């Protein structure tokens, strides 16, 4: 017995709602940034924040349109399309250990990557470009490789140490570019 295919509109259904809410939140944030600006002596009726405010308002309206569109489509589609998607999800075969591990890494890679980059930038001023780069590579490679064993970290550390040293020598010494350095000069 064949299973009914998932209607492609299901996937977009909640996407429009989420996008609309995101757009509304974004527009409020953008409008808030227009509240502080330096005064000008210009006589122009269109000031420095007129266009930015207009843009924030238009984004708000477009966000509302997305939400309204979601609501109208949901009413038309009813609940049958949603239950078809749920049925398909329930029927997926069980995952192996490796697949489960990769699924976990798949979910955490993006957020952890951003945290790693933020830490990298915070440390760059404190411990210098070379050491912070070495640390960043040491932590990033195991995350991308989904290999957090001691051997994986050691391999990443060796790659990180060599590559950050080479990059520093190439850019700071050969190309004579200024790179952030700590008290020990690199």
């Amino acid at each position, binding site marked *: 017995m064949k299973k009914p295919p998932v209607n492609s509109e299901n996937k977009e259904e909640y996407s429009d709602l989420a996008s609309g809410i995101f757009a509304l939140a974004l527009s409020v944030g953008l409008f808030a940034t227009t509240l502080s600006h330096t005064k000008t002596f210009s006589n122009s009726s269109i000031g420095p924040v007129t266009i930015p405010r207009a843009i924030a308002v238009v984004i708000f309206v477009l966000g509302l349109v997305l939400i309204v569109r979601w609501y109208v489509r949901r009413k038309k589609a009813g609940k049958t399309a949603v239950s078809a998607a749920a049925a398909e999800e329930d029927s997926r075969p069980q995952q192996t250990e490796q*697949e489960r591990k990769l699924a976990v890494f*798949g979910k955490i890679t993006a957020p952890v990557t951003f945290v790693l980059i933020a830490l990298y930038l915070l440390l*760059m001023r404190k411990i210098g470009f070379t050491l912070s780069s070495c640390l960043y590579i040491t932590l990033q490679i195991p995350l991308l490789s989904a290999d957090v064993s001691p051997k994986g970290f050691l391999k990443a550390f060796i790659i990180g140490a060599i590559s950050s040293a080479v990059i520093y020598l190439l850019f700071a010494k050969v190309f004579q570019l200024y790179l952030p350095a700590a008290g020990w000069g690199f």
Partner: protein
Amino acid sequence: MLENIIMGFSQFSPLTYLLVFGGVFVGLIFGCVPGLSGTTAITIAIPMSLVLDPVSAFALFMGIFVGGCSGGCISAILLGIPGTPSNLSTTFDGYPLAKHGQPGKALGLAIFCSFLGTFVSIFALFLLAEPLSRVAIKLGPIELFSLIFFALSLVSVLAGGNLIKGWIVALLGVFLGMVGISQIDGATRLTMGIRKLSSGFSTTPALLGMFVVGSLISASVADKSAHGEHHLIDCRIKGLGFKLSEFASQIWNAIRSIAIGLGIGILPGIGGITSNLVAYSVAKTCSKTPEKFGTGVIDGVVAPECANNAAIGGAMIPLLALGIPGDGLTALLLGAFELHGLVAGPILFQKNAGFVYAIFAALALACLLTVIMEYVSLPLLVRTLKVPINILMPIIMVLVMVGCFSVNNRIFECWVFLIFALLTYLLKKFKFSTTPLILGFVLGADCETYLRRGLMLVNNDVSQFFKRPISCAFIILSVVCTVLLFHQDKHQKERLKAAESASEAEIGVDISDD
């Protein structure tokens, strides 16, 4: 025209020739490895270029640009994974052709068609860029605003994926481009009290943030396993790899695809990525045997490779003539222009004609070097496909940080990179396309300046935007294109929905038969 090319080459030093050669080689490697691209290579080259004169720097960038666009066909054909998004359609027939025991033919055709597409597009660039710049210099702020409005409308619909979402992202980009000091009245705005933002977000770190983090995250093993295993096919090319009679049968396909690539490349904000898909679809539609597409027909290799490389020259035309980037990579080049104290646009032809012709000369040289190097160094390029990308990408991230830092010698620019990377990631998570964001950001400040200046010129009489013929034409074109493409997209979705309902009904019959 010949004297202009000679003028261009006269700007070259021996180092410049070496840089074009090196740029092509690096571009081929970066284009070849899935997850990297010419864009990534240029981001690494940007900090290095600060020690070079502008001619040598842009010679390097042109080498990377051409090499990067051409190299992606190698992994598309031998691995079934496009080296760059511009080579996606090449995988549809290139990989099956290689699996059927003809990798040499597939690669030979792809390399030759890449050369042909690039060559014709550079010729078009020679012919069109300067006349267009002479027209552009006569445009006033009202016409320039309307032109930017047209560019944003087009990219919002074509590359935005969805009209409303495309416009949201384009407007967000324009907003971010306006951060800092207003060009009209010198007021500092939208900085949230952060003094370092008074000069706005630096173009290069912002664009790097939009481009690079996606590649970093998709380099993860977890992401790759979600996309399935691909096996590398071994390949040696004898001669050109294909018979001339085989190519002769593809002449019309090649000409049509080059025209598509050139036309799409000229349109602001969209380039090789769209052109290869459109050219493939058109080739399939025009073919006498469309059912064979996807099984390994040479038409399916010729069309996308001609088109995506033809978009190179096409994308450079609006960049040099109007200061409007033709695609994502040329948006990055816009940032490189700023770093070297140059302003892309019609004034460039007037004040730095020698520099512009040097760019043309570099492109021509890069085109020739690329085809030779692809044939000669194919075994080396194939070996680079075995490099684990999940190890390479973090090193590339460090190089990107060097690039961001060296813009203004401050870590703040690296934070700008991170902010834009996070924003791009969130937009993709919420199913927004980011191409309109790139164009909106790059053109945002100018868009507002032209609008305000235009209104000041005509005492806030908005009707002047419709009374002036060029401005009116751009606005009407924007509306017409938006409406047409919106309806086309709506009909496509309705057809898809109808097809799904039909298959559901069929399954319903099957179930009832059980």
